[in-house]
């Protein structure tokens, strides 16, 4: 039986690593491939063919963002492994941007399913569609997540009267973009942005920033860091008893199910956004908990965080597109993907026809829904958006809400 290869461009580690947590996107993708292959594979021209996954690690999340290594992996997947489609990463925005020309040159369809949040990615596709039409992104992007963060903070203000925020982000493209967008957006809505600090990847101490937030009487600490060192920040916030509501965006150190244990409970009250719904338990669509259960049964851990549900969904969307295109020919596949309109784990999945960015929404019936959860009593409880929330935000001790301020 002939097999089709899906090259996975980027994972933090190869699958052989013992810790599945950091390769959760890959685990999601493997689960989808196994499910599809168990049914005989993808139907092409009346015959079913299984999907084959080739996995290489671009290592682009490491300090220093080694771009050359990431590009080498992209080229290796195309030329040596003969992948028909590229999925996954590169994960770091800088590496994904650098890989765009390479992928366009080889005319390979690429679906980013995790990482690479920079809005510049889909903007570039829209600006030069003819060249970059092979590139799709099925997960969220910084502009949308910034909008959601602002809406979340506004809902917190309405409920608690908080309007003073301190921002701490990592020195990488998407995080700097988020800090700028959220800071500016909140100031326009009357918030006081007390500071916006940028930390290098691999920074080991956050005490000065935390004490600044405390001294300036911040009520919300907005953190956007995807490096594992965020675990240090979480512990320092807890140890120093900084009286702010900590809200992390995409942060592996906060969003993973093991965060409570690895931080000794210091992660309590932290909010995080593992982007798409399904990365924390909710009932966004009938498929959400079905995926959640299947993943937990397969990997003996709950879906770990960012990139998990989108990588799983990405494989199903690709399989559907291959079936409709009747081929993995790049141009036919692009046309099929552009016509995608299906319900996935995190809502309705459609791509913007010009930018190839998945269309977002707060309503899972209309588009891809994100999920923001808070750690409450060892559990990840979804608190935003309202349509899929399973609980309400709890305020940490030492921080007093002033309801009715607005």
């Amino acid at each position, binding site marked *: 039986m002939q097999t089709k290869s899906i090259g996975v461009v980027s994972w*933090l*580690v*190869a699958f*052989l*690593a*013992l*810790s599945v*947590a*950091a390769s959760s996107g890959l685990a999601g993708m493997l689960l989808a491939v196994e499910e599809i292959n168990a049914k005989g594979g993808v139907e092409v021209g009346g015959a079913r063919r299984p999907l084959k996954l080739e996995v290489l690690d671009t290592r682009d999340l*490491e*300090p220093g963002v080694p771009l050359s290594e990431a590009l080498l992996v992209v080229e290796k997947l195309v030329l040596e492994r003969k992948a028909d489609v590229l999925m996954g990463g590169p994960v770091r925005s800088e590496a994904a941007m650098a890989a765009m020309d390479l992928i366009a040159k080889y005319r390979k369809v690429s679906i980013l399913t995790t990482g690479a949040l920079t809005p510049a990615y889909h903007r570039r596709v829209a600006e030069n569609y003819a060249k970059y039409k092979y590139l799709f992104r099925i997960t969220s992007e910084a502009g949308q997540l910034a909008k959601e963060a602002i809406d979340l903070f506004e809902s917190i203000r309405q409920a608690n009267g908080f309007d003073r925020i301190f921002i701490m982000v990592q*020195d990488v493209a998407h995080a700097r973009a988020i800090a700028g967008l959220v800071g500016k957006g909140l100031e326009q809505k009357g918030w006081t942005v007390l500071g916006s*600090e*940028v*930390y*290098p990847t*691999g*920074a*080991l*101490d956050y*005490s*000065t*920033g935390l*004490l*600044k937030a405390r*001294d300036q009487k911040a009520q919300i600490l907005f953190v956007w860091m995807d490096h*594992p*060192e*965020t*675990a*240090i920040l979480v*512990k*320092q916030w807890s*140890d*120093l*008893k900084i009286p702010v509501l900590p809200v992390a965006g995409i942060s*592996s*150190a906060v969003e*993973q199910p*093991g*965060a409570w244990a*690895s*931080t*000794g409970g210091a992660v309590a009250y932290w909010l995080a956004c593992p982007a798409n719904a399904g990365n924390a338990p909710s009932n966004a669509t009938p498929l959400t908990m079905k995926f959640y259960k299947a993943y937990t049964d397969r990997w003996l851990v709950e879906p770990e965080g960012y990139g998990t549900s989108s990588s799983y969904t990405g494989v199903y969307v690709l399989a559907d597109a291959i079936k409709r295109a009747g081929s993995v020919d790049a141009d036919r596949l692009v046309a099929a993907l552009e016509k995608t309109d299906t319900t996935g784990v995190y809502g309705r999945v459609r791509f913007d026809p010009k930018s190839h960015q998945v269309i977002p929404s707060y309503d899972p019936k209309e588009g891809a829904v994100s999920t923001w959860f808070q750690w409450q009593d060892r559990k990840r409880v979804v608190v935003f958006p309202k349509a899929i929330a399973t609980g309400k935000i709890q305020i940490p001790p030492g921080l007093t809400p002033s309801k009715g301020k607005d």
Partner: protein
Amino acid sequence: MLRSILIYGLINSIILALTAIGFSLTYGISRVANFAHGALYVLAGFAAWVLFYRLGLNYYLALFLAVVMVALIGAALYRFALIRVRGMPISEIIVTFALGTALLELLRFFGLFGSNYGLPPLRRATLQLSGVPVDFQRVAVVVIGVVLIAALWLFTHYTKVGLAFRAIAQDEQAAMMVGIDPDRMATLSLGLGSALAAIAAVVLLPLGYIAAESGTNILVYAIAVCILGGLESPAGVIVASLLIGYAQILSVAYFGPHYQMIVALLAILVTLVFRPSGLFGRQKELEERV
């Protein structure tokens, strides 16, 4: 702000001193620049994690055994690998760098990445020092760091092995004439330097997490401190740690956190340009005089 800068500057300085003292001691005695220093640091943390969480040993016993194990590995590194390239600095660097990289990649292969592995702090508590909150583990880091440095000074000044270390460091040939075996001393120095890296790991890793990626960071900081202070000078390590430690905290407070990494690298650059031996080093003293 000033009080927090003073307190956290001191903590940061002691952290740097702990990461660098083993590297400096090894170089001072054996003249081997141990580029596996960062990997041994990570290995010690992982060993302690396995002994404590997987084998269920008493926490302090697990930490002790991890230090002993890494010390033995360090000594074996000299006895079985470095001894063959003794006296060839470039080869020594290549050997230690290669072994360190292989070790880190092996740990990474077995899943030691991300923030899933951590050691518990000695005690979960927060102290107020002049109104500045400091967690108990950071206070312990300062106390352990100071005690360790004092113990090392006593060891090198009042024990036979310590005096032999200093003799070798001052003049290897003269030391040999009075019966000191340089290979034995080099083995011991690699073992002790590795033990110091391991002590730094078990003291510092409860502040964050254990991951293969941190091995490179630790090595860079150790080298930065040693180059600024003088590669073979323990006093230089302390002074350089204070300089870089406070410079980092000041840069975070007044210029922005993203400058803190630059401070360490800038220290290497400036020192190599203006005083290649470092503040207290004598390695290239003659050249500098000329």
